[in-house]
């Protein structure tokens, strides 16, 4: 039964992808892209990847769409029809599809427990996590401890994107914006119903974000998801009350401090491991009991990740929204 559902979803995914490419209205394309991300998230969930599904839904469907819309408001909504040269790319693309599909016949079939990918490294994680780290969510354990260095890198990717957007958009706009947009930026301020409902929702979104942050060791969730969820909560607040109110609540300097502070927190936990006699990012030396040390380290770095992601996404949002 679930397979029929999965096939249906995947087919829908391809159709959505085609629609995104074909439509000439960019607004429609961005909305379809959000649907595409949601479909993708559902697929991930069917394939047992709860953490990834949560992230894709929060980041892919939520934050990315908001950023796209922010950029659309500053650029154009309509795409010019293409004039020439669509056959060569189509030919290249078709050949590549055929090659990839051909190669798929040698791959181990889906779900085969005997596939090499499930034989070598992964079983070790599944077996040893209980002993070394003792948290139920193995994805979090791998993310934060076994491959914590990757995650450090990832935090700095977000950091790089954030400073990049701020750097690029710190140039004052070349031409003065039309006065029409000033009405837009206050968003839904004059609409009673969305405002009331929105105000009701915002605290619960924060609560859910914190739950995802601190429940990450036990269930799906963690720093990225929590950071993205809390950021969307604040973005909702900004849409309801206007850009200025959100900036008033959390000024840009605080956002900057969050971005830098979260990244530094992560790095400092790693350096602390080094100073206390372990290797970089070795959390077991943080406490006399290595298992508790690992757990402490994971909670700390997840907090660092959450703070940085939240601060970075909000900084990026404000950088786009301000230019309106």
């Amino acid at each position, binding site marked *: 039964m679930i397979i029929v559902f999965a096939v249906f979803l995947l087919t829908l995914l391809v159709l959505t992808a085609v629609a995104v490419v074909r439509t000439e209205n960019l607004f429609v394309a961005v909305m379809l892209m959000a649907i595409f991300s949601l479909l993708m998230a559902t697929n991930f969930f069917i394939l047992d990847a709860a953490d990834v599904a949560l992230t894709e839904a929060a980041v892919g469907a939520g934050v990315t769409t908001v950023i796209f819309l922010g950029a659309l408001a500053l650029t154009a909504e309509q795409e010019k029809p293409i004039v020439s040269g669509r056959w060569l790319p189509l030919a290249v693309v078709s050949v590549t599809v055929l090659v990839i599909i051909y190669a798929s016949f040698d791959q181990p079939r889906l779900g085969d427990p005997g596939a090499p990918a499930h034989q070598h490294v992964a079983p070790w994680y599944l077996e040893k996590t209980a002993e070394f780290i003792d948290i139920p969510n193995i994805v979090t354990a791998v993310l934060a401890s076994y491959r914590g260095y990757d995650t450090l890198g990832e935090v700095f990717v977000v950091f790089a994107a954030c400073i990049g957007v701020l750097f690029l958009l710190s140039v004052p706009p070349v031409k003065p914006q039309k006065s029409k947009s000033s009405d837009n930026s206050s968003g*839904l301020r004059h*609409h009673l*119903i*969305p405002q009331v*409902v*929105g105000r009701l*929702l915002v605290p*619960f979104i924060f609560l859910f974000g914190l739950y995802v942050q601190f429940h990450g060791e036990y269930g799906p969730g963690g720093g990225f998801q929590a950071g993205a969820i809390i950021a969307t909560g604040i973005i909702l607040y900004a849409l309801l009350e206007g850009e200025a109110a959100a900036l008033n609540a959390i000024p840009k300097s605080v956002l900057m401090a969050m971005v830098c502070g979260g990244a530094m927190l992560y790095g400092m936990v790693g350096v602390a491991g080094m100073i206390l006699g372990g290797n970089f990012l070795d959390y077991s030396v943080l406490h006399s009991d290595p298992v508790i040390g690992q757990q402490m380290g994971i909670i700390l770095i997840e907090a660092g990740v959450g703070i940085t992601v939240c601060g970075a996404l909000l900084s990026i949002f404000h950088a786009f929204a301000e230019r309106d």
Partner: protein
Amino acid sequence: MLLDILSWILLCLGGGFVLVGGIGALRMPNFYTRMHAASLTDSTGSILIVVGVMCQAGLSLATIKLLTILIFLLLTGPTATYALANAALLSGMKPQADTDEGRSSS
């Protein structure tokens, strides 16, 4: 057993509503009628489905989570519909009784 049957009835009903809503969104002549079709059935459908799933889950933590989801859906769905209609109205799309014109414009 009885709970199981009840739950399946609710789930099927909910699915039916959502399906009808989808058809409506496709077949209705203009923007406001389409939205109308989609939003009403969507709310009803989601209530029925969530209650159906709650029957399956029995008395557990999952039921409380489902209840929260239900409350969220009931709050956000109509609000989103309202915001959408309002935005459409503000951007100059007039509701029309004359369906023929609506068809040609949509």
